[in-house]
Each structure stands twice: as C-alpha cells, then as structure tokens.
C-alpha cells in the first residue's frame, strides 16, 4: 500500500507535465456570447492539453450578474480554481484580504514583466510588488461599428467619423433604421459616454476627469459640449429595445441599426456572423476622431486553495493563459488584442490591425476600471443609463450630477 503510494507520487513527480494526473479546475467567467464562448474554448483546449481538466463555470448575464456570485464564493470559503475579473480594481480587496494566489514566482520565471505590453496591464495585477493575476487580453472601448447594409438601404455613404454619423442619422431614421443601437444595460451607456468624451472633448479632458478626478474640469465648458452631444445622441438610440450588448450588435449585423458604440469585443460577433471588416461593416477607432484606445481587458485571478494539486493546476493555467499560442488563439476569436508584444497576429483582420497599429504607436489610455473604484464606476453608470434613456434630464443637470460624482470619486 505504502509502496504503491510512493510509486504514484514518484511517477507523478517525474512525469511530463502533459501526463500529470488530471486535476479538475473550475473556471468562472461571464463569457457567454458567441464570440466569447468560442474564445474561451481556446483557453480550455490549451489547458486540457496540459493534462488537466477545465471545468467551465460560465455565468450568463454580464459581469454584474456574475461578480456577486464569484465574490460570495471566494469570501464564503468555497472558491473556484480561477476566475475572471476586469482589469483594474474589482478584486483589489480580495487580494488585500489574502484570498488570492501570489503568482510572482511564476511571473518572474516566465519573465512576464518583459513580455507584457503595455506594462500597465501587469501593474494592475500588482499589489505591493506582488503579482496576483494574469491579464489575458486588451480591450478598448473606443470604437463605433457601422453596418454597410443599413447605410446602403438608406442610400447614404458609410460615415467615416462621428460627425458624419450624426449627420447621416436622419436618413437612417427615414429608412426605418435605428441610427445608434444601444443595449439597456448601464455599463453600455457609460462606455458610450466615455468614448464620446474622447471623441468630442479630447484626450486631455478625459485624462483630467478620469485620472486626476478633477471636479472643475467636470464642470467645464469642454464637458458641457460632450453632454450636449450625448443629449442629441440619445435620441438616435430610441427604438433599440434590447438589453444585451450583443443583441444591439446584432442589430448592426442585420442592418437594422446604423451603428453601435461598443468595445472591440463586438468584433467577435461580426466574426461569428461571418461578416468581413471593410466589406460588411466598418470599425472606427476613437469614433474616427481621436484615434486612441484604452487598455482595459480581462484578467484571471486564482483564489487560494487548500489542495496542492489544484494549486499546481492553477499555476499551470496561469502559464497556459500567458503562452503565445493561447494568446493568439484566444484573442483572434475574442476580437481583442493580445497582452504580449511578441506575438504575431498574421491572421488578424482589418479592425484588429487598426487596433494593433494604435497600440504600437503608444496611443493608449488606461481603462476607467483601472482608474476608478467599482463604486464610482457604478455611480457614473447609474447616471448615464438614466441620462441616455430619460430625455427629460437636461444636459446641464446631468453634468452637474456627474461633476458631483467626480468630486467624491475614488
């Protein structure tokens, strides 16, 4: 009995990693749309190839639905093997409370500090000099997706920037299209607003407010212009009676809507629908005005587990997620940019190339998830979804309320 146990231990110790005893690792995430699911399947495949087993714990809805469940399970002492969070501060306190696995050793061994680009991604994972998460992709918000079919139906040219888009809206409306598709969830409203700040107010304005949290700037004329613009834009989104972002995207894909301000993850949906960038749809980074992208994205955290086998599997998964092949395979499907500067995305499509170019030029911003606490984010989201959907709120009132949030933002 004893001997066989020892033997078993030895054999597993000496076996190649691919032959290691299969360990089940439950991975929770909220990637359930078509493109997302296809992308996450790449991670699962790569992890399973390492001899372990990916137990998929997808929670549908959105981050808002999924995060409470994840947090409850981690604080309740029954954590999963790995879990998705957005880049930034969502898991900050969980890390502080010592509930998360320290990945520093692995990161140093694999020299993440050298390969992760931009470096800010890794910074978001770092607390007191220790690394606690694996950034897996770069997502940027600053895109508008335009449907060629919709514009063809309306008999106007596909716009090349935001101003043209607004100008063409009446024609679309006349053709029975919704000019601007927009889901009902609050994070979408806020995202679109943030993008419009950059497009209309400029990058510095954004930085002043979102990084320096300057209340005076939030009350400035510059931002007033943005609010005025949004108050016009919200009329363009009337009639998009959908909740989920991908249903809004679907309106663009099917030509029911002219365009959608949405992050680059929308790309995955176009891909699943077998649409070709430049031919069926057009993407305009920075809404065609200020070409810049934010470097938000998703990261995986690994809650501390008691089972050493599982811990080993966790490190394996972290390593797999950072690996070149997985990065390429995953990000191609997801429509996001890889976190490694040293991979070649030969098969990347038009839109991804645009993103890669901007990234290479260094025109990057942090994501507001990185600069704001979830609380402040949530407050802005509440305000924005109200503002977008309730036309009785004037731009002025909304701006004042916005400024108040910025005053106290953390």
């Amino acid at each position, binding site marked *: 009995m004893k001997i066989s146990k020892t033997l078993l231990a030895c054999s597993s110790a000496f076996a190649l990693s691919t032959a290691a005893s299969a360990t089940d690792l439950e991975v929770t995430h909220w990637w359930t749309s078509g493109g997302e699911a296809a992308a996450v399947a790449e991670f699962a495949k790569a992890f399973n190839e390492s001899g372990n087993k990916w137990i998929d714990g997808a929670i549908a809805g959105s981050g808002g639905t999924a995060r409470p469940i994840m947090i409850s399970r981690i*604080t309740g002492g029954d954590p999963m093997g790995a879990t998705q969070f957005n880049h930034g501060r*969502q898991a900050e306190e969980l890390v502080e409370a010592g509930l998360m696995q320290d990945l520093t050793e692995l990161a140093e061994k694999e020299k993440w500090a050298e390969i992760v680009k931009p470096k800010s991604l890794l910074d978001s994972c770092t607390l007191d000099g220790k690394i606690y998460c694996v950034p897996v992709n770069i997502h940027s918000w600053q895109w508008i997706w335009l449907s060629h079919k919709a514009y063809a139906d309306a008999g106007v040219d596909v716009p090349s920037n935001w101003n043209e888009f607004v100008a063409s809206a009446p024609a679309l409306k006349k053709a029975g299209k919704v000019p601007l598709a927009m889901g*009902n969830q609050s994070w979408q409203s806020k995202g679109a607003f943030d993008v419009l700040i950059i497009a209309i107010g400029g990058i510095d304005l954004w930085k002043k407010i979102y990084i320096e949290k300057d209340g005076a700037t939030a009350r400035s004329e510059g931002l007033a212009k943005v609010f005025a613009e949004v108050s016009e834009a919200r009329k363009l989104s009337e009639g998009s009676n959908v*909740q989920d972002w991908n249903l809004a995207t679907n309106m663009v894909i099917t030509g029911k809507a002219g365009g959608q301000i949405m992050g680059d993850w929308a790309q995955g949906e176009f891909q699943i629908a077998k649409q070709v960038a430049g031919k069926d749809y057009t993407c305009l980074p920075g809404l065609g005005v200020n070409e810049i992208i934010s470097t938000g994205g998703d990261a995986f955290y690994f809650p501390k587990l008691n089972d050493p086998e599982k811990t080993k599997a966790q490190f394996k998964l972290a390593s797999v997620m950072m690996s070149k092949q997985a990065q390429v395979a995953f990000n191609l499907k997801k429509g996001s940019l890889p976190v490694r500067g040293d991979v070649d995305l030969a098969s990347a499509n038009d839109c991804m190339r645009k993103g890669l170019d901007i990234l290479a030029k260094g025109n990057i911003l942090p994501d507001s998830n990185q600069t704001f606490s*979830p*609380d402040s984010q949530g407050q802005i989201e509440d305000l924005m979804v*109200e503002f977008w959907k309730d036309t009785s709120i004037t731009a002025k009132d909304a701006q004042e309320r916005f400024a108040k949030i910025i005053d106290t933002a953390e």
Partner: protein
Amino acid sequence: MLTGKAQDGVMTTQERPNQLFRNISAKIAALPMIATALVVFLGGTLWTIFYSFTNSKLLPRLKFVGLDQYERLWTTNRWLISIENLLIYGVLSLIFSLVIGFVLAALLDQKIRFENTFRTILLYPFALSFVVTGLVWQWVLNPDFGIQKVLRDMGWTSLEFDPLYNPEIVIYGILIAGLWQGTGLIMCLMLAGLRGIDEDIWKAARVDGIPMWKTYLFIIIPMMRGVFITTLVIIASGIVRIYDLVVAQTSGGPGIASEVPAKYVYDAMFTKQNLAQGFAGSTMMLLSVLIILIPWAYLEFGGRKRV
C-alpha cells in the same frame, strides 16, 4: 387552610422545576426557530445595521463614517426612484391583489360549474418563478413582436403599447406581470376564507333581502379579518422583496425607471462593491418592514387574550 405554602406534600419533597426547564421538549424543539430568529434574522439585521455606519467596500471592515452612507443614499436619484417605484407598485399591487383576488374568489364561490378548471387556470402562474414570469411578460409586452405589433398588424397602427420601454409607465408593466403571477394565491386564500363562512349568514342575508354586494361588503368581508391579515402579510412581504421580476423583465430599465430598493441594495453591495451603501439601503428597507409589522404584531398578540 391548614397548610401553609412552606409545607410540602406529605410524601413528596420535589423541587420546583426551574422555569427554564418547563416544557423542555417544546423549547428544544423550538431551538431551530429560536436560532433562526436570533442568529439569522435578528443577528443578520443588527450586523447589517452595524456595518451601514462604516465605509466597507468589497469586504466588511470597521472604519466608521457615521451617517455618510445614509446621506449619500437619500441624495442618490436611483434610490429615490426605487422608493417611489416601490410605493407605486406596493400600493397598487396591494389594492389590485386584494380586489381582484376577492372578486375572483367570490365568483368562484357561486357554486359554478368547472370550478376546478377555473381555479387551476387562475392559480397556475403562481407555480412559475418570477424569473419565468418576467421573461414571458417581457416577451408579450415587447413592442416589436408582442401585443403592440399584433394590434398594429390588425390595423390599429397608432397604438402605443410599450410599457417596458417607456420610463413613465414601466412600473405598470411590471405590475401587470406581478399581478398575473400573484393573484391566484390571493384568490385561493380568499376562497378558503369564503368557504369558512357559515352558510346561515347567507341564508339570513337572503331572507332579509340584502343585496349580494352589500352582503359581501358589510357582512362577509368584516368576518374574514383573519384571512385578510394572512393575505396582507403574504402580499406585503412579496412587495418589499420584489427583485427577480424586475431583473428578469427590465433589469431596472429603461434607464433606471424601474429600479426597486432590493435591486439597489444588491447592486450596491456586489456590483458597486460598496457593502456599506448596500447595508444602508437594507437598513432603510428593514425599518419600513418594521413599520408594517408593528401594527400586525399588535393585532396578533395584543388584540386578543387566550384563556
């Protein structure tokens, strides 16, 4: 008499049983209830109130900020809208549930044929979860393919019926679904109450020539006090807790027009990662529950004495 209290019986010198051990089995049996009441409901409530004075974010921590959370709560538009929605929904739901439930019960109580069939039809929505209810009604009320589209296709093109997408009336859209799901049970409770009324009352009213509606209004309803109290507890508890239905039907939208307090609390705690803000909202909700409950407890325990 001869015996003073000091003198015990001739043969027994038993100790007076400790009050704590009187009915000991009953107390042991009630332990789960006592534990639930004290630890979960009371303890959880106090814990919640306690931490509402801190600035706990994702995890509870003891950094006190006084009434800051409450100040923020009552200056937050979303909370105010939530309260307003709850009031509208609550009052209307209470009235309609009682009225519809009672009227349906009275109709079913007319010794009609197919009573079982009707009752089953009225009751079945209660078997469905709020999530399902929300989804179905979201679908039926969807302007693009629901009632509005059907009626427009039939020629009524000017019709606007999109309660779930109009911030002004979205709460009524939710009310429709809520009533659909809940009135069946109320009807059942009322029906049970009506069945418990002495037949002679009806005979008396008939002989006296009192019209039926008057009999119901002035004689039967006052006799059903107990049923109404139970029903009220059930309806009211459902109102305060409303959450799933809104999430499934509108997610609080359009905008924040159909937000409710429970959702505010949940989102504050988990999405905004601001536990203390959520706790402050919880505390306000619990407080309002107490306001509902105190009159009930008074009626239940203070009103009558059992001899």
